[in-house]
């Protein structure tokens, strides 16, 4: 096996002495130095004791993913996490925004929810307006 494993973006070698069995689909019992732990696989994440580890395979024969450091300097999008209605816009296109700053408020499941900038940058575009109905996954804003 030539593939490397990246955990949270960093290459990590599998533990050399822990033993592992899959007890239920996606649920693993891990024994390491006499300690019993449970690991759960959900999508691209492995949860151990409530901690999330995102894994990737870094295989030269595979399409090179650029989700890591590269993307942090590229575009970031704010997408509607579910169908809903835009009730407030908190920033304007062209604004410099801080990481965590609220950009758009969407009402869904009877709750108003503020969508925040995932990182600092310039609000390159704002692709919705107040009272818009939006579908799940719709891109509402782009930060560069």
């Amino acid at each position, binding site marked *: *096996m030539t593939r490397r*494993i990246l*955990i*949270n*973006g*960093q290459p*990590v*070698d*599998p*533990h*050399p002495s*822990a033993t*592992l069995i899959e007890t*239920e689909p*996606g*649920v*693993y019992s*891990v024994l390491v130095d006499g300690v019993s*732990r449970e*690991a*759960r*696989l*959900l*999508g*691209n994440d*492995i*949860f*151990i*004791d409530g*901690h*999330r*580890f*995102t*894994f990737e*395979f870094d*295989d030269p024969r595979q399409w090179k*993913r650029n*989700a*890591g450091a590269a*993307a*942090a300097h590229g575009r*970031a*999008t704010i*997408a*509607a*996490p*579910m169908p809903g209605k835009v009730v407030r816009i908190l920033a304007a296109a062209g604004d410099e925004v801080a990481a*965590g700053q609220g950009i758009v408020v969407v009402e*869904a*499941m*009877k709750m108003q*929810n*503020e*969508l*925040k900038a*995932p*990182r600092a940058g310039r609000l390159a575009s704002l692709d919705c307006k107040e009272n818009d109905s939006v579908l*799940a*996954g719709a*891109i509402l804003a782009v930060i560069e």
Partner: protein
Amino acid sequence: MFSKVLIANRGEIALRVIRTLREMSIPSVAVYSDADRAALHVRRADEAAHLGPAPSSESYLNIDRILDAALRHRATAIHPGYGFLSENARFAQACADAGIAFIGPSAKSISMMGSKTEARRVASAGGAPIVPGTLDGVTSASEALAAARHAGFPVMLKAVAGGGGKGMRRVDREPDFLAAFDSASSEALRSFADGRLYVEKLIENARHIEIQILGDRHGNMVHLGERECSVQRRHQKVIEESPSPLIARLPELRARMGEAAIRAARAAGYYNAGTVEFLADNSGNFYFLEMNTRLQVEHPVTELVTGLDLVRLQLSIAAGHPLPFTQSDIVLRGAALECRIYAEDPANNFFPSPGRITQLAEPSGPGVRLDSGIYPGWTVPLDYDPMLAKLIVWNDTREHAIERMLRALGEYQIGGIQSNLALFDAILRDPAFRAGNLHTGYLDAMLQRTPFTAPPPPAELAPLAALVASRLPNSSAATTPPATTPPAAPASRWLADGRQNLMRKERTR
């Protein structure tokens, strides 16, 4: 007793009622919307009636369709659960008109307590202390402002037809008053088709303590002790417990509040299970807040400390039977706590997280009760309140009950969607919570103080994650589309995950 009962509700409370009906050998009829064909309450009921499309107005809130289902299935009684039509006087009356028993109070009692100002007047007339403020709803901001000045800032603005925190605003200073009034009034108009508000003096650091009462149609009424529900976020209860830590300190308060609750309920000619909510300060002063004329979400904590089945008693009362006990027979034992498990992400501003539940491990064992409405493989629909389940524990003392809840939370795993399980862990370990130093602003203050974020994962666990990953084929990573936001920002990752779950759901519908 009734020959068949329809439950005009969904989710965990429908299942809760089905369970008692089954114990009483009464056939149950579930109702369901298009979004709920696969819901657990439909699977577990003896019969099931389709109501209509997913929106509540065309299904769970549609009186005609529910009565039609009851008549078609020959149900002789309807249990409304909580929420939906449970406090709708018109529905209670429509049941009576159709010759179907409404398992609740009279339409008249619902009306009296449904208007918050009317309820204040009734309770006050009955002798229960009320929060200083307006006795009537007002529509003019200036009239409200005068009342606010009279009571003294800070004040609360509340919708006359209110509930669930809608149309409610805290106003600390006079300059903010008019804007708050307009915004609360328009929210109330939107939510309840009634923009009237009333003004109450804000009781600082108040606890929310409520009294469970039970009255029959023969004029007998008892109280079943209190529940403290001070752990709230956005005026929504998050954790409830009995006994209240305040009453544990001031034991004579229970009888005083219990009597005040009974006085208020009697003044409304009340029968059925009901809850009288109070604000209380740490000196033991308390004020009537409102009355809920139905079974409460948090009724299990009272069931655990009293040993009573409130749903069985509701059925018995609705069938015209007298209460099988008097006040002196009610004995409270130990301590119970309830956590409301929601499909929401506490690390990301409590964003709702509907979607498909891919993994589920549920707690069990000594002193643990789980009232749940979910199962692995089920898709939590977008259309309704995102409450998944209630986890309730009992133990001999509050401290031991908290320890048991932490143990049970550790056994609880919900995969595929975000849940607020980790939030409870944080609250239950908080020294202020452990000490019982609670007030309705407690949780907001705690979250302000220590924002709810995932701690950095311990480095020594990474090689174990890598070991798990090493057993997986390459393809398992490739199935997930690249995230739209960088992995360095966890909040956004969770957003992205939520979206992916939703997209999967859209495809599989």
